[in-house]
């Protein structure tokens, strides 16, 4: 859906065409679900939160004016619902969260990238599970902002809009989130020691 088409759908729903809302659900359910999944670590909770988020979006749609992007607006709703949910849960330690990956899928790192030496560096497989575990280790706001960037693909400005932050703050938070995540993966054994071996532990990668 182009932005214009999306606005047309939104207006139809605002006019009372309830069924048209399904088009918006179809367009965003996958990314909303995955953001909720990574925020909560539980498929059941993610389903409930996704449903709640869309319901809230539907109820508040009369207040959506179209001067900001619908996706930013929607993701603000999703993120806040997830944060509230996590707070209510009392932020259980990550070990008690259930991140089932019954497929046991591993991802062969695709390293056909810029530099040559990485191929040797990154022999080990970065599993989806390992990254998820790492995401659970992050502080809430860092996880939230990283997910909006990586899963939803929002720009710095859009994230700033969604979370009421300056783009500068968004940039540095994303950087710190990545750094922390990599540090965890390093400890977890999922990124080769190469990174740490080249500098004393605890200097660049906290």
């Amino acid at each position, binding site marked *: 859906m182009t932005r214009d088409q999306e606005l047309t759908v*939104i*207006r139809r729903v*605002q006019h*009372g065409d*309830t*069924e048209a*809302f*399904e088009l918006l*659900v*179809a367009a965003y*359910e*996958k990314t909303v679900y*995955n953001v909720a999944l990574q925020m909560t670590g539980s498929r059941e909770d993610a*389903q409930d939160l*996704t*449903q709640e988020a*869309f*319901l809230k979006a*539907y109820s508040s749609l*009369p*207040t959506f*004016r*179209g001067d900001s992007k619908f996706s930013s607006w929607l993701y603000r709703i999703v993120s806040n619902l997830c944060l509230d949910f996590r707070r209510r849960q009392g932020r259980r330690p990550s070990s008690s969260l259930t991140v089932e990956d019954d497929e046991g*899928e591993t*991802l062969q790192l695709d*390293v056909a*990238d*810029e*530099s040559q*030496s*990485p191929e040797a560096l*990154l022999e080990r497989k*970065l599993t*989806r599970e390992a*990254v998820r575990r*790492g*995401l659970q280790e992050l502080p809430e706001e860092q996880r939230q902002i*990283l*997910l909006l960037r*990586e*899963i939803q*693909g929002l*720009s*710095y400005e859009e994230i700033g809009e969604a979370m009421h932050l300056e783009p500068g703050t968004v*940039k*540095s938070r*994303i*950087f710190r989130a*990545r*750094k922390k995540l*990599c540090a965890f*993966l390093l400890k977890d054994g999922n*990124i080769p020691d*190469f*990174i740490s071996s*080249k*500098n004393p532990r605890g*200097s*660049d*990668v906290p």
Partner: protein
Amino acid sequence: MSSCEKYQELISRMIDGDLSAREEAELARHLDGCPTCAALFDAFSAVSRQIGSDLEEPPAALRENVMAVVRREEIRRKNRIPTAIRGVLSIAAVAALVVGVYWGVSLSQSSKAAAVSAAAFENGAVVEKAMLAEEAADAIDAGSGAPEESVITEEAAAPQAAENSFSLADSVPADEATRDALAEAPMAAPAALPEEGAEEPEDEVPAWDLSAWDVSLLWDLLGGKPTELDPEELEPALLGRIVVRDKDAALSVPVFSRDGVLYYLDPLSRTVYQAELSPSELLDFLGETD
């Protein structure tokens, strides 16, 4: 190796495509000579790809479940109207009695009071307001210009009422019991509203009927940004009112022209916006649609 910290931040931004050509070149030069940062770059890239790829499919039932609750919500909304009308119209009747006194002051309500009113209305009462405005819309069709005021005055009355701990306004926030009690109260005829409206000096100001338009179309047309301006301050510059549709109701949007700049008031948020259109462009446009 603290200089690497600066480059590390650049790496993060590079992955998001946020670097200028110059910054990118500078970073590339650094990466060439710094294996640590080069490794970090690869790690950041790999993790970024991993998070964003291979997303899970939501369960097949999710979409249907969402639509089921949405439809239920829509039905629930529609069923609330009957009780709400009785309650709101009786509130409006009493509110109308204070409107005449407070009209001049109401426009300068603090945004906080407006927010209280807005919150009260947002709580499912948007539809109630809409039904009230429906009465106003009918009166508009009947050719009387005054009832347009009723949409704004009712809005205006509520914040003032809320501020003065006006007992009826207190109950506006979706208190079912109170609303039912209000429903018992004698329902003053909506004719009370036009009476108040008739006292308004804005009678001579033109009203443009774009009631076929949804309000969001008007926002798109006018565009612009919110300002901190006080609606009361702009009152002498009132150009006219544009009537559009907000769901099933009529909404009256005042537009102002001052120093060659077009402003408009969003009655729902009580915010003054500076439009992207010029006053003459708007008048041209309205002239054509007449």
